[in-house]
């Protein structure tokens, strides 16, 4: 079983990202489970969402304390939340930032992957909403969900022109991270 924790701020689509990973994992013929760290929704406040993907039915329902992968949608969270808490040493943390990873001073032995998702979002979507771009980066960096399934899951959620733009953004993020 692989466990994923997503950090973001209210309004950045962290819960949606978790749901899309669960749908994509299912498309890959695996079992999946996604849920938010249920809070009173407030725009801008730190939020978390969780995903599990496994080859067997998933029974455990506690929150995720030792993730294999962490996604951070907003680099300013590093000042207020220990985003790498409990991250497995052989895991990966993917952060949306324009800063080089050495400057992030993350307390983790895990591999740090950075991507300037906000820049890609502004170029392709015209809005600083990065959740689908982080999904592309997740596919590229971890291989835990196939790009085809991720595209299918995103297309199910976002239709028409918005869906096409999101697929382009995912492809861009996937390629940047895969070639890094």
């Amino acid at each position, binding site marked *: 079983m692989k466990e994923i924790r997503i950090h973001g701020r209210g309004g950045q689509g962290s819960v949606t990202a*978790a*749901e899309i990973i*669960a*749908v994509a994992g*299912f498309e890959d013929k695996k*079992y*999946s*489970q*996604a*849920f*938010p760290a*249920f809070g*009173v929704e407030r725009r801008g406040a730190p939020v978390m969402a969780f995903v599990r993907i496994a080859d067997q039915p*998933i*029974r*455990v*329902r*506690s*929150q995720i*304390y030792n993730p294999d992968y962490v996604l951070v949608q907003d680099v300013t969270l590093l000042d207020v939340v220990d985003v790498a808490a409990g991250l497995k040493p052989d895991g990966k943390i993917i952060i949306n930032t324009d800063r080089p990873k050495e400057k992030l001073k993350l307390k983790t032995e895990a591999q740090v992957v950075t991507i300037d998702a906000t820049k890609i979002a502004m170029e392709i979507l015209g809005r600083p909403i990065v959740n689908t771009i982080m999904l592309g980066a997740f596919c590229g960096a971890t291989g835990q969900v196939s790009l085809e399934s991720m595209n299918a899951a995103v297309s199910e959620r976002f239709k028409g022109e918005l869906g096409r733009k999101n697929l382009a953004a995912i492809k861009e993020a996937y390629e940047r991270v895969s070639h890094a």
Partner: protein
Amino acid sequence: MRKVVEGSYAIAQAVKCCDPDIISAYPITPQTHIVENLSQMVADGELKAEFITVDSEFSALSALVGSSAMGARSYSSTTSQGLALMYEVLYNVSGLRMPIVMTVANRAMGAPLNIWNDQQDSIGARDCGWIQLYAENVQEAMDLTPQAYKLAEDPDILTPVMVCMDGFILTHVYEPVEFLDHDKVKQFLPPFKPKITLDPAHPVTIGAFADPSTFTEYRYLQQDAQNKALGKIDTIAKEFKETFGRYYGGLIDTYRMEGADAAIVTLGSVIGTIKDALDEMWAEGKKVGLVKVRSYRPFPVKALRDSLKDVSSIAVIEKDVSIGNEAGLTTDLKAAFYNTGMKTPIIGFTAGLGGRDITLKDIKKAGDKALAAAKGPEAEFEFLTLRKEIL
């Protein structure tokens, strides 16, 4: 069709397949998505039901008293303070023998204000005459919905049913579920045809005054119907299996009880986490099993005695507390043993109150205490994950 959807949407789909005539509900977190989805289905013409919007939960269930008396299959859903606001009507519905089904998206009772999950709301309503069934996962909550109608509408039962599912943990999770097939549900659940309905052409009185010469007998008949439900719950679960292929046990289910030294008894969505924790405990040589209570009312006294007769000690984990005593399931289980001569130590834990996460570590701690209790309980009742440092 198998799909990953939100728990609340899955429940709305299951309710739709039961062809309710009338739905009346007042939105309240974390039940809201269930009734929003149903309201949308009605508005889209997907579901041929009338959705009565109301000013409160009291009105929601009161409206269903009227519709059920007319012979309409009636549905509602609520949680927490909403269920509390229905309290007076809960007794009216069960006393009038109305087979209403209601999904309770379990949530803590305020104050302090808290929107998160525990089971204080429905456990606190255990004496209201409703049947209470508890689901472990979204699929079970879905599958219980047509089973609940079949049970409630059985002429020998005619008792309302609460299908209890943990708020947020099950209502807001995305996980794979098998959707119910509408035609198959139609075969499984025949149309609701009560013998007596309100009909201007054939006037009757429903809800007449009962003086001391008859009131006791009305209560006895309710008790008798719940006793009969003890048998029907498993029969219906097996009929469901024949049609849909899924079965979760009848009144109770067990896990790793074969050769277990101690047992954990619980209800609701924490069961999945417990199963994973028990696998780890067995790998460490600690033989702790699980008894899952599916039906809390009627309380499955005999099934629990039989399933627990071979263990040396028992821990109950539940998400409620009877402030001033212990907690509902703990007390009920002890009472079930008393006249049998079974002297197995039973210890109770309240956990997961107001959304406090229950981890594998917490379960293993309770399991260790259960094993140790074979030598006599250290404490009768404990708060399992108490943060002593902030008291």
